[in-house]
Protein backbone atom coordinates (compact mmCIF):
# COMPACT_ATOMS: atom_id res chain seq x y z
CA UNK A 1 0.00 0.00 0.00
CA UNK A 2 1.26 3.40 -0.83
CA UNK A 3 1.56 5.91 1.91
CA UNK A 4 -1.46 8.15 2.11
CA UNK A 5 -0.29 11.62 1.25
CA UNK A 6 -0.57 14.45 3.69
CA UNK A 7 -3.33 16.91 2.86
CA UNK A 8 -2.35 20.42 1.93
CA UNK A 9 -3.90 22.03 4.95
CA UNK A 10 -2.11 19.65 7.28
CA UNK A 11 1.12 20.46 5.51
CA UNK A 12 0.55 24.20 5.74
CA UNK A 13 -0.43 23.90 9.36
CA UNK A 14 2.70 21.97 10.26
CA UNK A 15 4.98 24.34 8.41
CA UNK A 16 3.28 27.36 9.91
CA UNK A 17 3.66 25.85 13.36
CA UNK A 18 7.32 25.16 12.75
CA UNK A 19 7.80 28.72 11.62
CA UNK A 20 6.36 29.82 14.93
CA UNK A 21 8.69 27.45 16.75
CA UNK A 22 5.90 25.19 17.83
CA UNK A 23 5.59 21.49 17.41
CA UNK A 24 2.60 19.23 17.23
CA UNK A 25 3.35 17.38 20.42
CA UNK A 26 4.33 20.43 22.40
CA UNK A 27 8.03 19.80 22.34
CA UNK A 28 10.69 22.43 21.94
CA UNK A 29 12.83 22.56 18.83
CA UNK A 30 15.65 20.53 20.30
CA UNK A 31 13.66 18.14 22.47
CA UNK A 32 13.62 14.43 22.08
CA UNK A 33 10.46 12.51 22.65
CA UNK A 34 10.23 10.34 25.71
CA UNK A 35 12.66 7.51 25.38
CA UNK A 36 12.39 4.12 27.01
CA UNK A 37 14.83 1.27 26.86
CA UNK A 38 13.77 -2.21 27.89
CA UNK A 39 15.29 -5.63 27.60
CA UNK A 40 13.98 -9.10 26.80
CA UNK A 41 14.73 -12.44 28.42
CA UNK A 42 17.74 -13.21 26.33
CA UNK A 43 20.93 -11.31 26.36
CA UNK A 44 21.08 -8.93 23.46
CA UNK A 45 17.37 -8.25 23.09
CA UNK A 46 16.41 -4.65 23.41
CA UNK A 47 13.28 -2.57 22.86
CA UNK A 48 13.50 1.13 22.34
CA UNK A 49 10.58 3.50 22.47
CA UNK A 50 10.95 6.95 21.08
CA UNK A 51 7.56 8.48 21.58
CA UNK A 52 5.39 6.10 19.62
CA UNK A 53 8.21 4.85 17.45
CA UNK A 54 9.18 1.43 18.66
CA UNK A 55 11.93 -0.83 17.49
CA UNK A 56 13.33 -4.10 18.67
CA UNK A 57 16.91 -5.21 18.26
CA UNK A 58 18.22 -8.71 18.75
CA UNK A 59 21.85 -9.63 18.63
CA UNK A 60 22.91 -13.17 17.88
CA UNK A 61 26.17 -14.84 17.07
CA UNK A 62 27.52 -17.85 15.27
CA UNK A 63 30.88 -19.34 14.41
CA UNK A 64 31.84 -18.77 10.77
CA UNK A 65 34.93 -18.74 8.63
CA UNK A 66 36.51 -15.28 8.50
CA UNK A 67 37.03 -13.20 5.39
CA UNK A 68 40.14 -14.14 3.51
CA UNK A 69 41.76 -10.74 3.70
CA UNK A 70 41.08 -10.40 7.43
CA UNK A 71 41.74 -13.84 8.95
CA UNK A 72 41.74 -12.81 12.58
CA UNK A 73 38.85 -10.44 12.71
CA UNK A 74 35.31 -11.30 13.63
CA UNK A 75 32.43 -10.17 11.47
CA UNK A 76 29.51 -7.95 12.13
CA UNK A 77 26.36 -7.90 10.11
CA UNK A 78 23.39 -5.59 10.46
CA UNK A 79 19.95 -6.07 9.09
CA UNK A 80 16.94 -3.82 9.43
CA UNK A 81 13.56 -5.30 8.82
CA UNK A 82 10.85 -2.85 7.82
CA UNK A 83 7.82 -5.01 8.20
CA UNK A 84 4.38 -3.81 7.12
CA UNK A 85 3.45 -4.34 10.74
CA UNK A 86 5.01 -1.02 11.61
CA UNK A 87 3.49 1.07 8.88
CA UNK A 88 1.32 0.29 5.87
CA UNK A 89 3.83 2.14 3.75
CA UNK A 90 6.43 -0.57 4.24
CA UNK A 91 6.20 -3.36 1.78
CA UNK A 92 7.56 -6.84 1.75
CA UNK A 93 9.76 -8.08 -1.01
CA UNK A 94 12.34 -5.90 -2.68
CA UNK A 95 14.18 -3.68 -0.21
CA UNK A 96 12.85 -0.17 -0.50
CA UNK A 97 14.97 2.94 -0.74
CA UNK A 98 14.30 3.72 2.89
CA UNK A 99 15.39 0.28 3.97
CA UNK A 100 18.63 0.51 2.03
CA UNK A 101 19.27 3.95 3.43
CA UNK A 102 18.73 2.87 7.02
CA UNK A 103 20.69 -0.34 6.63
CA UNK A 104 23.69 1.40 5.18
CA UNK A 105 23.57 4.14 7.72
CA UNK A 106 23.50 1.64 10.58
CA UNK A 107 26.33 -0.29 8.99
CA UNK A 108 28.34 2.87 8.68
CA UNK A 109 27.45 3.91 12.18
CA UNK A 110 28.44 0.61 13.81
CA UNK A 111 30.84 -1.18 11.54
CA UNK A 112 32.83 1.58 9.90
CA UNK A 113 33.32 3.40 13.16
CA UNK A 114 34.66 0.12 14.61
CA UNK A 115 32.60 0.29 17.74
CA UNK A 116 33.19 -3.33 18.73
CA UNK A 117 36.52 -5.02 19.01
CA UNK A 118 36.36 -7.46 16.12
CA UNK A 119 39.75 -8.93 16.85
CA UNK A 120 38.56 -10.29 20.18
CA UNK A 121 35.95 -12.26 18.25
CA UNK A 122 38.56 -14.45 16.65
CA UNK A 123 38.52 -18.05 17.86
CA UNK A 124 40.94 -19.81 15.52
CA UNK A 125 42.78 -17.49 13.19
CA UNK A 126 41.76 -17.99 9.60
CA UNK A 127 39.25 -20.67 10.46
CA UNK A 128 36.69 -19.73 13.03
CA UNK A 129 35.52 -16.35 14.14
CA UNK A 130 32.33 -15.11 15.71
CA UNK A 131 29.89 -13.40 13.46
CA UNK A 132 27.79 -10.94 15.36
CA UNK A 133 24.46 -10.31 13.74
CA UNK A 134 22.27 -7.40 14.68
CA UNK A 135 18.66 -7.70 13.57
CA UNK A 136 16.50 -4.67 14.05
CA UNK A 137 12.76 -4.91 13.63
CA UNK A 138 10.38 -2.02 13.34
CA UNK A 139 7.37 -2.48 15.53
CA UNK A 140 5.76 0.88 15.09
CA UNK A 141 6.73 3.77 12.84
CA UNK A 142 6.20 7.26 14.12
CA UNK A 143 9.15 9.04 12.66
CA UNK A 144 12.87 9.22 13.33
CA UNK A 145 13.55 5.57 12.74
CA UNK A 146 17.29 6.04 12.43
CA UNK A 147 17.82 7.33 15.94
CA UNK A 148 15.68 4.62 17.47
CA UNK A 149 17.47 1.99 15.42
CA UNK A 150 20.92 3.17 16.35
CA UNK A 151 20.07 3.34 20.03
CA UNK A 152 18.44 -0.10 19.98
CA UNK A 153 21.34 -1.63 18.08
CA UNK A 154 24.12 -0.29 20.26
CA UNK A 155 22.23 -1.04 23.49
CA UNK A 156 21.58 -4.58 22.33
CA UNK A 157 25.25 -4.98 21.51
CA UNK A 158 26.21 -3.76 24.97
CA UNK A 159 23.70 -6.09 26.53
CA UNK A 160 24.70 -9.11 24.50
CA UNK A 161 26.85 -11.89 25.83
CA UNK A 162 28.39 -14.54 23.67
CA UNK A 163 29.03 -18.11 24.80
CA UNK A 164 32.48 -18.85 26.07
CA UNK A 165 34.71 -21.05 23.97
CA UNK A 166 37.79 -23.09 24.66
CA UNK A 167 40.31 -24.13 22.05
CA UNK A 168 42.29 -27.31 22.59
CA UNK A 169 44.37 -28.22 19.62
CA UNK A 170 41.91 -28.37 16.76
CA UNK A 171 38.89 -28.79 18.97
CA UNK A 172 36.66 -25.87 19.63
CA UNK A 173 34.26 -26.31 22.52
CA UNK A 174 31.37 -23.92 22.91
CA UNK A 175 30.09 -23.81 26.45
CA UNK A 176 26.45 -23.40 27.23
CA UNK A 177 25.54 -20.56 29.61
CA UNK A 178 25.06 -23.11 32.41
CA UNK A 179 28.60 -24.40 32.11
CA UNK A 180 30.42 -21.14 31.89
CA UNK A 181 29.20 -17.60 32.12
CA UNK A 182 28.79 -15.98 28.73
CA UNK A 183 31.13 -13.13 27.86
CA UNK A 184 30.11 -9.60 26.97
CA UNK A 185 31.46 -8.02 23.79
CA UNK A 186 34.14 -5.45 24.15
CA UNK A 187 32.65 -2.18 23.05
CA UNK A 188 35.04 0.65 22.31
CA UNK A 189 32.52 3.41 22.09
CA UNK A 190 28.83 3.91 21.57
CA UNK A 191 27.90 5.73 18.39
CA UNK A 192 24.45 7.23 18.57
CA UNK A 193 22.70 8.84 15.68
CA UNK A 194 20.94 12.16 16.06
CA UNK A 195 18.67 13.29 13.24
CA UNK A 196 17.98 16.85 12.29
CA UNK A 197 15.09 17.64 10.01
CA UNK A 198 15.29 20.73 7.84
CA UNK A 199 12.26 22.72 6.83
CA UNK A 200 11.66 25.50 4.37
CA UNK A 201 14.97 25.29 2.54
CA UNK A 202 16.94 24.73 5.68
CA UNK A 203 15.73 27.82 7.53
CA UNK A 204 14.28 25.82 10.37
CA UNK A 205 15.64 22.75 12.00
CA UNK A 206 14.14 20.27 14.40
CA UNK A 207 15.56 17.40 16.37
CA UNK A 208 13.81 14.03 16.42
CA UNK A 209 11.08 14.63 13.82
CA UNK A 210 7.89 12.67 14.30
CA UNK A 211 6.14 11.07 11.38
CA UNK A 212 4.01 14.00 10.17
CA UNK A 213 7.03 16.26 10.48
CA UNK A 214 9.10 13.83 8.46
CA UNK A 215 6.57 14.09 5.69
CA UNK A 216 6.85 17.84 5.33
CA UNK A 217 10.58 18.12 5.84
CA UNK A 218 12.91 19.12 3.03
CA UNK A 219 15.83 17.06 4.17
CA UNK A 220 17.43 15.16 6.95
CA UNK A 221 20.89 15.30 8.41
CA UNK A 222 21.95 12.32 10.45
CA UNK A 223 24.99 12.75 12.66
CA UNK A 224 26.29 9.81 14.61
CA UNK A 225 28.54 10.69 17.53
CA UNK A 226 29.82 9.12 20.68
CA UNK A 227 30.21 10.66 24.07
CA UNK A 228 33.86 11.44 23.44
CA UNK A 229 32.58 14.01 20.98
CA UNK A 230 33.87 12.04 18.06
CA UNK A 231 31.82 12.02 14.90
CA UNK A 232 31.27 8.50 13.63
CA UNK A 233 29.26 9.24 10.54
CA UNK A 234 27.42 12.04 8.85
CA UNK A 235 24.85 11.61 6.19
CA UNK A 236 22.67 14.21 4.58
CA UNK A 237 19.62 13.07 2.70
CA UNK A 238 16.76 14.59 0.82
CA UNK A 239 17.30 17.36 -1.67
CA UNK A 240 18.48 20.00 0.74
CA UNK A 241 21.12 22.54 0.24
CA UNK A 242 23.17 22.98 3.31
CA UNK A 243 25.51 25.79 3.96
CA UNK A 244 28.76 25.02 5.60
CA UNK A 245 28.17 26.77 8.88
CA UNK A 246 24.80 25.11 9.17
CA UNK A 247 26.52 21.79 9.54
CA UNK A 248 29.30 23.13 11.56
CA UNK A 249 28.46 24.68 14.80
CA UNK A 250 24.86 24.42 15.62
CA UNK A 251 24.15 20.83 14.88
CA UNK A 252 27.27 19.44 16.35
CA UNK A 253 26.83 21.14 19.64
CA UNK A 254 23.30 19.89 19.92
CA UNK A 255 24.27 16.44 18.74
CA UNK A 256 27.00 16.07 21.31
CA UNK A 257 24.69 17.16 24.12
CA UNK A 258 21.99 14.78 23.00
CA UNK A 259 24.41 11.94 22.58
CA UNK A 260 25.78 12.29 26.11
CA UNK A 261 22.23 12.38 27.45
CA UNK A 262 21.26 9.27 25.56
CA UNK A 263 24.44 7.45 26.49
CA UNK A 264 23.71 8.14 30.12
CA UNK A 265 20.22 6.77 29.70
CA UNK A 266 21.52 3.63 28.06
CA UNK A 267 24.08 3.07 30.76
CA UNK A 268 21.43 3.50 33.40
CA UNK A 269 19.11 1.10 31.63
CA UNK A 270 21.87 -1.47 31.34
CA UNK A 271 22.70 -1.15 35.01
CA UNK A 272 19.08 -1.50 36.01
CA UNK A 273 18.76 -4.61 33.93
CA UNK A 274 21.91 -6.04 35.41
CA UNK A 275 20.62 -5.45 38.88
CA UNK A 276 17.26 -6.97 38.00
CA UNK A 277 18.91 -10.04 36.58
CA UNK A 278 21.10 -10.42 39.59
CA UNK A 279 18.09 -10.22 41.82
CA UNK A 280 16.62 -13.00 39.76
CA UNK A 281 13.54 -11.02 38.90
CA UNK A 282 11.42 -12.11 36.06
CA UNK A 283 12.38 -10.40 32.91
CA UNK A 284 12.06 -11.19 29.28
CA UNK A 285 9.85 -11.56 26.34
CA UNK A 286 7.14 -13.67 27.94
CA UNK A 287 6.97 -11.16 30.71
CA UNK A 288 6.90 -8.24 28.34
CA UNK A 289 3.53 -9.05 26.82
CA UNK A 290 1.37 -8.47 29.88
CA UNK A 291 3.50 -5.48 30.70
CA UNK A 292 2.65 -4.08 27.33
CA UNK A 293 6.23 -3.80 26.32
CA UNK A 294 5.69 -4.87 22.77
CA UNK A 295 2.44 -3.23 21.89
CA UNK A 296 2.72 0.43 21.19
CA UNK A 297 -0.82 1.36 21.93
CA UNK A 298 -1.23 1.84 25.61
CA UNK A 299 -2.06 4.62 27.91
CA UNK A 300 0.93 6.52 28.96
CA UNK A 301 1.13 7.03 32.64
CA UNK A 302 1.26 10.72 33.04
CA UNK A 303 1.91 12.43 36.24
CA UNK A 304 -0.81 14.92 37.03
CA UNK A 305 -0.98 17.42 39.77
CA UNK A 306 -3.71 16.24 42.07
CA UNK A 307 -3.71 18.74 44.89
CA UNK A 308 -7.05 20.39 44.38
CA UNK A 309 -8.69 17.95 42.05
CA UNK A 310 -11.16 16.69 44.60
CA UNK A 311 -12.24 20.15 45.56
CA UNK A 312 -12.69 21.25 42.03
CA UNK A 313 -14.54 18.11 41.12
CA UNK A 314 -16.98 18.41 43.97
CA UNK A 315 -17.40 22.05 43.14
CA UNK A 316 -18.39 21.14 39.64
CA UNK A 317 -20.67 18.42 40.89
CA UNK A 318 -22.37 20.84 43.22
CA UNK A 319 -22.87 23.45 40.56
CA UNK A 320 -24.20 21.05 38.05
CA UNK A 321 -27.89 20.50 38.02
CA UNK A 322 -28.96 17.09 38.92
CA UNK A 323 -29.81 15.38 35.68
CA UNK A 324 -33.10 13.69 35.40
CA UNK A 325 -32.67 10.08 36.15
CA UNK A 326 -35.68 9.03 34.17
CA UNK A 327 -34.55 6.43 31.78
CA UNK A 328 -37.39 5.04 29.75
CA UNK A 329 -37.61 1.42 30.60
CA UNK A 330 -37.21 -0.74 27.55
CA UNK A 331 -40.27 -2.48 26.29
CA UNK A 332 -39.56 -6.03 25.40
CA UNK A 333 -42.39 -7.48 23.33
CA UNK A 334 -41.15 -11.03 23.46
CA UNK A 335 -38.09 -12.14 25.38
CA UNK A 336 -35.05 -12.39 23.13
CA UNK A 337 -36.20 -9.83 20.59
CA UNK A 338 -33.97 -6.88 19.85
CA UNK A 339 -35.13 -3.47 18.83
CA UNK A 340 -33.61 -0.66 16.95
CA UNK A 341 -33.20 2.37 19.17
CA UNK A 342 -33.51 0.28 22.25
CA UNK A 343 -36.48 0.99 24.37
CA UNK A 344 -37.11 4.50 23.18
CA UNK A 345 -40.40 5.68 21.89
CA UNK A 346 -41.09 5.37 18.27
CA UNK A 347 -40.59 8.83 16.82
CA UNK A 348 -41.10 8.07 13.19
CA UNK A 349 -43.32 10.64 11.60
CA UNK A 350 -43.50 12.74 14.75
CA UNK A 351 -40.29 14.67 14.19
CA UNK A 352 -41.79 17.77 12.67
CA UNK A 353 -44.22 18.33 15.47
CA UNK A 354 -41.66 17.89 18.16
CA UNK A 355 -38.98 19.98 16.61
CA UNK A 356 -39.63 23.00 18.76
CA UNK A 357 -39.55 21.08 21.93
CA UNK A 358 -36.38 19.41 20.95
CA UNK A 359 -34.69 22.71 20.36
CA UNK A 360 -35.39 23.81 23.88
CA UNK A 361 -34.26 20.60 25.34
CA UNK A 362 -31.25 20.47 23.11
CA UNK A 363 -29.67 23.44 24.81
CA UNK A 364 -29.99 21.93 28.19
CA UNK A 365 -28.74 18.62 27.11
CA UNK A 366 -25.66 20.13 25.66
CA UNK A 367 -24.86 21.87 28.83
CA UNK A 368 -25.16 18.69 30.72
CA UNK A 369 -22.94 16.89 28.33
CA UNK A 370 -20.27 19.48 28.72
CA UNK A 371 -20.29 19.11 32.44
CA UNK A 372 -20.08 15.40 32.20
CA UNK A 373 -17.16 15.55 29.90
CA UNK A 374 -15.34 17.78 32.25
CA UNK A 375 -15.90 15.47 35.12
CA UNK A 376 -14.80 12.55 33.06
CA UNK A 377 -11.64 14.38 32.30
CA UNK A 378 -10.99 14.83 35.95
CA UNK A 379 -11.80 11.29 36.63
CA UNK A 380 -9.22 10.21 34.15
CA UNK A 381 -6.64 12.49 35.59
CA UNK A 382 -7.18 11.37 39.10
CA UNK A 383 -6.89 7.75 38.22
CA UNK A 384 -6.40 5.83 41.38
CA UNK A 385 -8.10 8.59 43.36
CA UNK A 386 -10.86 7.73 45.73
CA UNK A 387 -13.96 9.33 44.35
CA UNK A 388 -16.24 8.00 41.72
CA UNK A 389 -18.74 9.67 39.56
CA UNK A 390 -21.14 7.96 37.25
CA UNK A 391 -21.82 9.91 34.14
CA UNK A 392 -25.41 10.69 33.63
CA UNK A 393 -25.68 10.45 29.91
CA UNK A 394 -24.16 7.60 28.10
Amino acid at each position, binding site marked *: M*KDTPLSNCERDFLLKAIEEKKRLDGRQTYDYRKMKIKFGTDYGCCFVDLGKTRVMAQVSCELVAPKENRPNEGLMFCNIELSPMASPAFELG*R*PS*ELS*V*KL*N*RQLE*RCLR*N*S*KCIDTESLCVVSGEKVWQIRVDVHMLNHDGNLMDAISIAAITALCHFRRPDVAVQGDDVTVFSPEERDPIPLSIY*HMPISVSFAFFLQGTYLLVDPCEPEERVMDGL*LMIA*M*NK*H*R*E*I*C*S*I*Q*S*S*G*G*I*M*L*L*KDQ*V*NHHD*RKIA*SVKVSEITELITKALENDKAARKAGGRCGFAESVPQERITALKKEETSVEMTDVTDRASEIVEKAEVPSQTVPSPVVPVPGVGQVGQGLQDTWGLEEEEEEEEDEEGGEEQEEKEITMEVEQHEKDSRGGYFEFSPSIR
Partner: protein
Amino acid sequence: MAGLELLSDQGYRIDGRKATELRKVQARMGVFAQADGSAYLEQGNTKALAVVYGPHEMRGSRSRTRHDRAVINCQYSMATFSTAERKRRPHGDRKSTEMSLHLKQTFEAAIMTQLYPRSQIDIYVKILQSDGGNYSVCVNAATLAVIDAGIPMRDYVCACTVGFVDESPLADLCYAEESGGVSSLALALLPRSGQIALLQMDARLHQDNLDSMIEAAMTACKGVSKVLDEVVRQHLQEVSVLSRE
Protein backbone atom coordinates in the same frame (compact mmCIF):
# COMPACT_ATOMS: atom_id res chain seq x y z
CA MET B 1 46.46 -1.38 8.15
CA ALA B 2 49.49 -0.65 10.16
CA GLY B 3 52.82 0.06 8.59
CA LEU B 4 51.46 1.91 5.62
CA GLU B 5 52.57 5.46 5.80
CA LEU B 6 49.92 7.56 4.15
CA LEU B 7 51.67 10.84 4.58
CA SER B 8 55.43 10.94 4.69
CA ASP B 9 57.42 13.32 6.83
CA GLN B 10 58.21 15.34 3.77
CA GLY B 11 54.47 15.78 3.20
CA TYR B 12 54.09 13.42 0.27
CA ARG B 13 51.43 10.76 -0.11
CA ILE B 14 51.88 7.21 -1.37
CA ASP B 15 51.29 8.22 -4.96
CA GLY B 16 53.57 11.20 -4.69
CA ARG B 17 50.94 13.87 -4.33
CA LYS B 18 50.91 16.66 -1.81
CA ALA B 19 48.19 16.61 0.82
CA THR B 20 45.90 19.02 -0.96
CA GLU B 21 46.70 17.96 -4.50
CA LEU B 22 43.98 16.45 -6.66
CA ARG B 23 44.51 13.65 -9.12
CA LYS B 24 44.56 14.52 -12.79
CA VAL B 25 41.06 15.01 -14.12
CA GLN B 26 40.38 14.40 -17.78
CA ALA B 27 36.96 14.46 -19.30
CA ARG B 28 35.10 14.46 -22.54
CA MET B 29 31.49 15.35 -23.25
CA GLY B 30 29.17 13.90 -25.85
CA VAL B 31 30.64 10.45 -26.21
CA PHE B 32 27.46 8.68 -27.29
CA ALA B 33 25.17 9.60 -30.15
CA GLN B 34 22.04 7.88 -28.96
CA ALA B 35 21.81 9.46 -25.53
CA ASP B 36 20.60 12.99 -24.87
CA GLY B 37 23.77 13.63 -22.95
CA SER B 38 26.87 11.66 -22.13
CA ALA B 39 30.32 12.13 -20.66
CA TYR B 40 33.43 10.21 -19.81
CA LEU B 41 35.59 11.24 -16.91
CA GLU B 42 38.89 10.05 -15.53
CA GLN B 43 40.11 11.11 -12.15
CA GLY B 44 43.46 9.49 -11.69
CA ASN B 45 42.81 5.83 -12.30
CA THR B 46 39.12 5.96 -11.55
CA LYS B 47 37.15 6.06 -14.77
CA ALA B 48 33.46 6.55 -15.19
CA LEU B 49 30.93 6.84 -17.97
CA ALA B 50 27.73 8.78 -17.47
CA VAL B 51 24.71 8.85 -19.74
CA VAL B 52 21.61 10.99 -19.44
CA TYR B 53 18.27 10.36 -21.10
CA GLY B 54 15.47 12.83 -20.89
CA PRO B 55 13.55 14.67 -19.84
CA HIS B 56 11.03 12.30 -21.30
CA GLU B 57 7.60 10.87 -20.60
CA MET B 58 7.43 8.64 -17.52
CA ARG B 59 8.15 5.07 -18.41
CA GLY B 60 7.34 2.12 -16.22
CA SER B 61 5.23 2.89 -13.21
CA ARG B 62 3.10 5.94 -13.84
CA SER B 63 2.40 6.23 -10.15
CA ARG B 64 5.71 7.94 -9.52
CA THR B 65 4.75 10.87 -11.74
CA ARG B 66 5.08 14.20 -10.00
CA HIS B 67 2.82 16.95 -11.20
CA ASP B 68 5.05 19.76 -10.13
CA ARG B 69 8.47 18.55 -11.14
CA ALA B 70 10.52 15.96 -12.98
CA VAL B 71 11.47 12.68 -11.38
CA ILE B 72 15.14 11.83 -11.43
CA ASN B 73 16.06 8.21 -11.83
CA CYS B 74 19.66 7.19 -11.20
CA GLN B 75 21.41 3.95 -11.65
CA TYR B 76 24.93 3.27 -10.55
CA SER B 77 26.80 0.17 -11.57
CA MET B 78 30.34 -1.11 -11.58
CA ALA B 79 31.84 -3.13 -14.39
CA THR B 80 32.91 -6.64 -13.45
CA PHE B 81 36.47 -5.75 -14.39
CA SER B 82 36.56 -2.48 -12.49
CA THR B 83 38.38 -3.75 -9.43
CA ALA B 84 41.46 -5.87 -8.91
CA GLU B 85 39.29 -8.78 -7.98
CA ARG B 86 36.99 -9.80 -10.81
CA LYS B 87 33.58 -9.98 -9.33
CA ARG B 88 30.16 -10.53 -10.73
CA ARG B 89 28.09 -7.68 -9.51
CA PRO B 90 24.43 -8.42 -9.34
CA HIS B 91 22.10 -5.50 -9.80
CA GLY B 92 20.69 -3.87 -6.76
CA ASP B 93 23.01 -4.85 -3.96
CA ARG B 94 22.96 -2.54 -0.99
CA LYS B 95 26.01 -0.52 -1.82
CA SER B 96 25.09 0.28 -5.39
CA THR B 97 21.48 0.99 -4.46
CA GLU B 98 22.73 3.41 -1.87
CA MET B 99 25.04 5.01 -4.36
CA SER B 100 22.18 5.40 -6.83
CA LEU B 101 20.17 6.96 -4.06
CA HIS B 102 22.91 9.44 -3.24
CA LEU B 103 23.36 10.38 -6.87
CA LYS B 104 19.66 10.95 -7.17
CA GLN B 105 19.67 13.11 -4.10
CA THR B 106 22.61 15.14 -5.34
CA PHE B 107 21.07 15.85 -8.70
CA GLU B 108 17.62 16.53 -7.36
CA ALA B 109 19.23 19.37 -5.50
CA ALA B 110 21.04 20.77 -8.53
CA ILE B 111 18.76 20.20 -11.52
CA MET B 112 15.86 22.60 -11.90
CA THR B 113 13.32 19.82 -11.88
CA GLN B 114 10.36 22.15 -11.51
CA LEU B 115 10.72 23.15 -15.16
CA TYR B 116 9.72 19.72 -16.36
CA PRO B 117 6.54 18.58 -14.67
CA ARG B 118 5.40 15.01 -15.25
CA SER B 119 8.62 13.94 -16.92
CA GLN B 120 11.54 11.78 -15.97
CA ILE B 121 15.27 12.24 -16.27
CA ASP B 122 17.43 9.13 -16.30
CA ILE B 123 21.05 9.25 -15.23
CA TYR B 124 23.06 6.07 -15.67
CA VAL B 125 26.61 5.92 -14.41
CA LYS B 126 29.06 3.09 -14.81
CA ILE B 127 32.43 2.76 -13.15
CA LEU B 128 34.88 1.28 -15.63
CA GLN B 129 37.85 1.30 -13.35
CA SER B 130 37.73 1.84 -9.66
CA ASP B 131 40.54 3.45 -7.73
CA GLY B 132 38.81 5.25 -4.91
CA GLY B 133 36.39 8.12 -4.81
CA ASN B 134 33.77 6.34 -6.87
CA TYR B 135 30.98 8.56 -5.65
CA SER B 136 32.74 11.79 -6.49
CA VAL B 137 33.84 10.62 -9.92
CA CYS B 138 30.29 9.56 -10.69
CA VAL B 139 28.92 12.92 -9.64
CA ASN B 140 31.49 14.79 -11.71
CA ALA B 141 30.86 12.64 -14.77
CA ALA B 142 27.11 12.90 -14.39
CA THR B 143 27.33 16.69 -14.10
CA LEU B 144 29.01 16.86 -17.48
CA ALA B 145 26.45 14.50 -18.97
CA VAL B 146 23.58 16.58 -17.64
CA ILE B 147 25.11 19.74 -19.07
CA ASP B 148 25.62 17.95 -22.38
CA ALA B 149 21.94 17.03 -22.41
CA GLY B 150 21.04 20.71 -22.09
CA ILE B 151 19.15 20.18 -18.85
CA PRO B 152 19.03 23.34 -16.73
CA MET B 153 21.03 23.22 -13.50
CA ARG B 154 21.64 25.84 -10.88
CA ASP B 155 25.34 25.26 -11.06
CA TYR B 156 27.85 22.49 -11.58
CA VAL B 157 27.83 19.83 -8.92
CA CYS B 158 31.35 18.86 -8.01
CA ALA B 159 32.22 16.18 -5.56
CA CYS B 160 35.38 15.16 -3.82
CA THR B 161 36.44 12.85 -1.04
CA VAL B 162 38.75 14.00 1.69
CA GLY B 163 40.58 11.93 4.25
CA PHE B 164 42.16 12.83 7.54
CA VAL B 165 45.64 11.64 8.43
CA ASP B 166 48.06 12.97 11.00
CA GLU B 167 46.03 16.06 11.77
CA SER B 168 45.92 17.12 8.15
CA PRO B 169 43.26 16.57 5.50
CA LEU B 170 44.14 14.71 2.31
CA ALA B 171 42.21 15.65 -0.82
CA ASP B 172 40.86 13.17 -3.36
CA LEU B 173 41.67 9.78 -1.84
CA CYS B 174 42.79 6.90 -4.01
CA TYR B 175 41.90 3.29 -3.25
CA ALA B 176 45.03 2.53 -1.24
CA GLU B 177 44.31 5.48 1.00
CA GLU B 178 40.61 4.78 1.24
CA SER B 179 41.15 1.21 2.34
CA GLY B 180 43.91 2.25 4.71
CA GLY B 181 41.28 3.00 7.29
CA VAL B 182 41.38 6.77 7.30
CA SER B 183 38.23 8.64 8.10
CA SER B 184 36.86 9.90 4.84
CA LEU B 185 34.33 12.51 3.95
CA ALA B 186 32.51 12.81 0.65
CA LEU B 187 31.06 16.14 -0.24
CA ALA B 188 29.07 17.33 -3.22
CA LEU B 189 29.17 21.06 -3.63
CA LEU B 190 27.62 23.71 -5.80
CA PRO B 191 30.78 25.75 -6.00
CA ARG B 192 29.43 29.18 -6.80
CA SER B 193 26.96 29.40 -3.98
CA GLY B 194 28.90 27.13 -1.62
CA GLN B 195 25.83 25.02 -0.99
CA ILE B 196 26.33 21.43 0.01
CA ALA B 197 24.19 18.96 -1.90
CA LEU B 198 25.43 15.89 -0.10
CA LEU B 199 27.61 15.27 2.87
CA GLN B 200 28.67 11.87 4.02
CA MET B 201 31.31 10.87 6.48
CA ASP B 202 32.68 7.57 7.64
CA ALA B 203 34.79 6.51 10.55
CA ARG B 204 35.73 8.26 13.74
CA LEU B 205 36.86 11.81 13.85
CA HIS B 206 36.88 14.30 16.64
CA GLN B 207 34.36 17.01 16.03
CA ASP B 208 36.92 19.78 16.25
CA ASN B 209 38.59 18.43 13.13
CA LEU B 210 35.43 18.48 11.06
CA ASP B 211 35.78 22.13 10.19
CA SER B 212 39.15 21.72 8.59
CA MET B 213 37.97 18.65 6.72
CA ILE B 214 34.90 20.32 5.27
CA GLU B 215 37.02 23.31 4.40
CA ALA B 216 39.51 21.10 2.57
CA ALA B 217 36.72 19.25 0.79
CA MET B 218 35.21 22.51 -0.39
CA THR B 219 38.51 23.72 -1.72
CA ALA B 220 39.02 20.41 -3.50
CA CYS B 221 35.53 20.60 -5.01
CA LYS B 222 36.25 24.08 -6.27
CA GLY B 223 39.40 22.76 -7.85
CA VAL B 224 37.41 20.05 -9.61
CA SER B 225 34.87 22.62 -10.74
CA LYS B 226 37.59 24.62 -12.46
CA VAL B 227 38.61 21.60 -14.48
CA LEU B 228 35.03 20.76 -15.37
CA ASP B 229 34.43 24.36 -16.34
CA GLU B 230 37.34 24.21 -18.74
CA VAL B 231 36.06 20.98 -20.26
CA VAL B 232 32.60 22.42 -20.80
CA ARG B 233 33.89 25.65 -22.34
CA GLN B 234 36.20 23.74 -24.64
CA HIS B 235 33.36 21.49 -25.73
CA LEU B 236 31.08 24.45 -26.20
CA GLN B 237 33.55 26.15 -28.50
CA GLU B 238 34.31 23.05 -30.54
CA VAL B 239 30.67 22.45 -31.25
CA SER B 240 29.74 26.04 -31.86
CA VAL B 241 32.69 26.52 -34.22
CA LEU B 242 31.55 23.53 -36.22
CA SER B 243 28.02 24.74 -36.51
CA ARG B 244 28.98 28.30 -37.38
CA GLU B 245 31.23 27.51 -40.30
